[in-house]
C-alpha cells in the first residue's frame, strides 16, 4: 500500500449511495428535443456553426471552440436544428443563455467517425488534437476544457485520477468504474502517453469496493498505475484535497496542480478520452445519477448531453409532486434548478430529486456563536466564521485578507454549523460582490480618465477658439482697413445685404419640392416629440413651483394647458400619419437599439484590440460583432424598406 496523507477538516455526511448504485447503467434513448447551451464549460462560449433548419448527424460539430480555453460541442443525436435561441441554462441563476436546439429525428444516425486503430502510434499533438476536437471537458466538477489541462506548461510527474466521488448520493463514477474499468485504464494510458508517462494514482474512497475490485482487475501489474484506496470523507474528491491525500503536497494558493507537476482528471473524463481517441466519438453522452426519494427508478443513466431534465426525470419515474427541491449535482455542492426544461450538460453528474424532509429544511438560522466547528471542518484551512462575519458586514477587504478566494465552496462548514447558517451563500455573495466591485473600480478609473480628457479637450478647444477669434479679428480689421483704403466710395452695404437675403429667399421658395413621406413622417415625429418634451418639462417645473408656492405657478399653469393641447394635436397628427402609413414604431425602436448595441460592442472591441495581447482572437470577435451589426442593420433596413414601400403605396391609394 502506498502511504497516504490526510487533509485538514472534512465531514462525514450520510452517504445515501445505495439508493442508486445497485443497478447497472441504463442507456436512455434520445429524447424528442435536445438543448445544447453554447457554454457548458469553463471559459469562452462556443460559436454555433449550424443554422436553424440544418440537418445534423450524431457526433457532428455544431459549435466550435472560441479561443484557447473553450470547447467544441457536437450534436448528440441526429435531427434538425430547430432554433438558435435563449433557453434556461443549468445555472444557479436560472437565467437563460444562447442554446442550439435540435429536434431529433429518432434515427440516431452517426456522422463520420474516425476511430484510431493503434493509438500508440499517435503523436502528442495528434492526441491533443483529438481530445480537443472531441470537445472533452472535465466531467468531475468545474468542466474545465480537457485539452487545455493536458498541455501543461511544466512537466508532469503524477497523473491523479479522481475516482473519489465523495459527495453523498452520487454514484455515476462508481457505476462507470464497475462497468467500464478497461476503457478507463486505456484512457489513463492514453493520457499518460500524452503527458510523457507520469505515474498514475487513482484515488478512490473505500466505500466503493466493487469499483476498486473492477479497477484492480483491469490493471496489469506492469502498468505505471496504482489504485489508492482512501478513507471516505467529504470532500476527499476535491482536487486539492485529493492531491494532498495522495502526495502530501498542497497546491499553491494561486496556482494550479500543474505547478507542482500534477494533473488531476476525473474518471469520466478519461473514459471520454478513450471514447474520443479509440472510438472516435466526441463527448455527447454522460452517465448521470438520478436519485433521491422522489425517484422511483433511482439509478444511473447514460443520457445524451442536451437532454432536458424533465425527460430524464420522466424516464427515471421521478414523482415531481413529492419533491420541492431539484438539485443538479450532489447535496453538498450541487445547485437547485427551478425549470425542468433545463438541459443536462457535460458536467451534470447527478440529479437529486429529494423528497421533502429528505434534505435539510431551511430553518431560521441563528447567529454565529463562533463555536469554531466550521474551522475544524474546513478543508481549505480557513476561518469560515470570520469569513461569515465579514461577508455579512460587507467587510470585503477583510474577507479577502482571510483568504475568501481560497474557499472551494465545499459546504463542509455550513454542514456542521450548529446555528445552521447558510455560510456558503454568504461566501458566494461576498465573492460576487468583490468581483462586481473590482469591475466597478476599473470602470470608474476609465470614466475618470475620460472625464479628464474631455475637460482638457474643452479647455484646449476654448483656448483654440479664442486664439482663432483673435486672429480673425485682427485679420478682419486689417481687411477692413485695406478695403476702406482701396474702395473708399462703395455702395450702401446694408442695401446690398438686404438684396442678398431677398434673393436667397426667393431661391428657396422656388426650390421647395413636395416632401417625401419619410421626411414628413420625421418632421411630424420631431414636432410631436418636442412639444411632448416641452410639456413634460413645464409640468415638472409646475409641480416644483407648486411645491414651493411660487407665484410663477399660475403662469406655468397656463403654459401647461396650452402645451397640453399642442402636444395632443401634434401627437394626433403623428398618429394619423402613422395609421396612414401602417407603421410599427415599437418594433423599429427595438431594432434600432440592437443596432446601437452592436455598434457599441464593435467600438469597444476595437479599443481593446489596440492593446490586446492576442489580437487574433479579438479580431475574430470584431468580425463577429460586425456580423451581428450587419444583421441588425439589415433587419432595420428591411423594416424601413417596408416603411418606404408602404408610404408609397399609401400615397398611391
Amino acid at each position, binding site marked *: 500500500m502506498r502511504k497516504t496523507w490526510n487533509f485538514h477538516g472534512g465531514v462525514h455526511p450520510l452517504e445515501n449511495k445505495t439508493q442508486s448504485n445497485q443497478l447497472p447503467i441504463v442507456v436512455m434513448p434520445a429524447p424528442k428535443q435536445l438543448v445544447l447551451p453554447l457554454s457548458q464549460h469553463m471559459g469562452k462560449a462556443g460559436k454555433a456553426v449550424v443554422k436553424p433548419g440544418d440537418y445534423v448527424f450524431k457526433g457532428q460539430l455544431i459549435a466550435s471552440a472560441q479561443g484557447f480555453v473553450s470547447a467544441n460541442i457536437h450534436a448528440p443525436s441526429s435531427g434538425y436544428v430547430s432554433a438558435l435561441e435563449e433557453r434556461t441554462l443549468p445555472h444557479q441563476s436560472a437565467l437563460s443563455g444562447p442554446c442550439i436546439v435540435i429536434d431529433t429525428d429518432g434515427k440516431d444516425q452517426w456522422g463520420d467517425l474516425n476511430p484510431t486503430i493503434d493509438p500508440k502510434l499517435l503523436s502528442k499533438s495528434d492526441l491533443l488534437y483529438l481530445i480537443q476536437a472531441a470537445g472533452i471537458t472535465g466531467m468531475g466538477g468545474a468542466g474545465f476544457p480537457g485539452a487545455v489541462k493536458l498541455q501543461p506548461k511544466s512537466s508532469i510527474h503524477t497523473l491523479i485520477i479522481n475516482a473519489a466521488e465523495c459527495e453523498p448520493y452520487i454514484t455515476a463514477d462508481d457505476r462507470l468504474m464497475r462497468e467500464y474499468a478497461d476503457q478507463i485504464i486505456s484512457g489513463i494510458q492514453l493520457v499518460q502517453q500524452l503527458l510523457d508517462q507520469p505515474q498514475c494514482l487513482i484515488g478512490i474512497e473505500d466505500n466503493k469496493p466493487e469499483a476498486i475490485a473492477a479497477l484492480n482487475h483491469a490493471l496489469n501489474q506492469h502498468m505505471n498505475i496504482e489504485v489508492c484506496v482512501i478513507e471516505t470523507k467529504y470532500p476527499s474528491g476535491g482536487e486539492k484535497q485529493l492531491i494532498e491525500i495522495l502526495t502530501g503536497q498542497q497546491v499553491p494558493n494561486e496556482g494550479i496542480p500543474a505547478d507542482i507537476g500534477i494533473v488531476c482528471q476525473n474518471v469520466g473524463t478519461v473514459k471520454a478520452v478513450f471514447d474520443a481517441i479509440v472510438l472516435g466519438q466526441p463527448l455527447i453522452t454522460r452517465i448521470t445519477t438520478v436519485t433521491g426519494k422522489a425517484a422511483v427508478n433511482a439509478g444511473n443513466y447514460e443520457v445524451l448531453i442536451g437532454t432536458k431534465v424533465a425527460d430524464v426525470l420522466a424516464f427515471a419515474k421521478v414523482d415531481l409532486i413529492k419533491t420541492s427541491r431539484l438539485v443538479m449535482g450532489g447535496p453538498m455542492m450541487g445547485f437547485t434548478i427551478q425549470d425542468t426544461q433545463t438541459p443536462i450538460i457535460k458536467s451534470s453528474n447527478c440529479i437529486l430529486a429529494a423528497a421533502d424532509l429528505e434534505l435539510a429544511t431551511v430553518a431560521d438560522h441563528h*447567529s454565529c456563536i463562533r463555536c469554531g466547528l466550521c474551522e475544524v471542518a474546513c478543508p481549505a484551512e480557513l476561518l469560515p466564521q470570520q469569513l461569515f*462575519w*465579514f461577508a*455579512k*458586514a460587507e*467587510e470585503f477587504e477583510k474577507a479577502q485578507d482571510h483568504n475568501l478566494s481560497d474557499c472551494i465552496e465545499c459546504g463542509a462548514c455550513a454542514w456542521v454549523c450548529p446555528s445552521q447558517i447558510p455560510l456558503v451563500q454568504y461566501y458566494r455573495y461576498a465573492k460576487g460582490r468583490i468581483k462586481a466591485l473590482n469591475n466597478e473600480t476599473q470602470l470608474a478609473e476609465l470614466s475618470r480618465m475620460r472625464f479628464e480628457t474631455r475637460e482638457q479637450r474643452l479647455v484646449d478647444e476654448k483656448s483654440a477658439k479664442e486664439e482663432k477669434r483673435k486672429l480673425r479679428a485682427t485679420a478682419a480689421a486689417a481687411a477692413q482697413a485695406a478695403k476702406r483704403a482701396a474702395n473708399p466710395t462703395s455702395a450702401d452695404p446694408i442695401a446690398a445685404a438686404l438684396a442678398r437675403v431677398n434673393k436667397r429667399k426667393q431661391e428657396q421658395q422656388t426650390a421647395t419640392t413636395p416632401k417625401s413621406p419619410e421626411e414628413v413622417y420625421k418632421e411630424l415625429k420631431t414636432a410631436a416629440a418636442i412639444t411632448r418634451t416641452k410639456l413634460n418639462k413645464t409640468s415638472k417645473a409646475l409641480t416644483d413651483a407648486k411645491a414651493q408656492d411660487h407665484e410663477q405657478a399660475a403662469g406655468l399653469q397656463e403654459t401647461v394647458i396650452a402645451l397640453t393641447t399642442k402636444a395632443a394635436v401634434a401627437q394626433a397628427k403623428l398618429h394619423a400619419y402613422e395609421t396612414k402609413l401602417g407603421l410599427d414604431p415599437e418594433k423599429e425602436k427595438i431594432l434600432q437599439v440592437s443596432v446601437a448595441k452592436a455598434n457599441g460592442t464593435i467600438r469597444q472591441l476595437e479599443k481593446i484590440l489596440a492593446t490586446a495581447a492576442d489580437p487574433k482572437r479579438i479580431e475574430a470577435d470584431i468580425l463577429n460583432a460586425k456580423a451581428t451589426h450587419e444583421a441588425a442593420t439589415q433587419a432595420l433596413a428591411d423594416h424601413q424598406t417596408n416603411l418606404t414601400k408602404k408610404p408609397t403605396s399609401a400615397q398611391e391609394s
Partner: protein
Amino acid sequence: MVDYLLILVSTVLVNNFVLVQFLGLCPFMGVSSRLETAMGMSLATTFVLTLASLCSYLTYTYLLEPFGLEFLQTISFILVIAFVVQFTEMVVHKTSPLLHKVLGIFLPLITTNCAVLGVALLNIKKANGFIESILYGFGAAVGFSLVLILFAAMRERIAVADVPAPFKGAAIAMISAGIMSLAFMGFTSLVAI
C-alpha cells in the same frame, strides 16, 4: 531597576491613563474605529508623549523653577507640546512620506490629547526625576496605545454586531469602554505606585 519596572506596570496596567485616570479619552473614542488607524495613532502618541514629558521636565527644572515661575507651568508646557507636535509633523511630512502616511493626520490631534499635558503636570506633581519622567511618559503612552489598539480591534468586531439602533456607534463604544475599565479594575493595587 525594579522601581522603573514598577512605574511601567503601574502606568500601563494599574493606573492606565485612559481607563483609570481618564486622560486621552477623545482620541481613544475618536480614532479607534479602525485597527490600522489606531496603530498609527499609538505610534504617534508614544513618540510625542515621551518627547513631551522629557521637554517639559527640562523646561520646568531649568526655566521655571529657578525663577519661581511655577505658575507658568501650564502655559509653558502646552507651548512646548504644541511646538513638539507641530515641528514633528512638519519634519515627518517632508522627510518621510511613508511615515507621514502612517502618522500624519494624528499628529495635530495629539496637541489636544490631554494625556500629554496630563503627563507633564503629573510628573511635576509626583516630583518625578529625569528618568522617571521619561519612563512615566513612555509608560503612559504604552498604556494608552495598549487600550487603544485593543479597543479598536474590539470596535471592529462590534461594528459587525447586531447592535440596537440607539446604541450604534458612540453609545455602545462608551459602554464597551466601561466594561474594559471594569476589567482593568482587576489590576487594582497590583503595585502601589
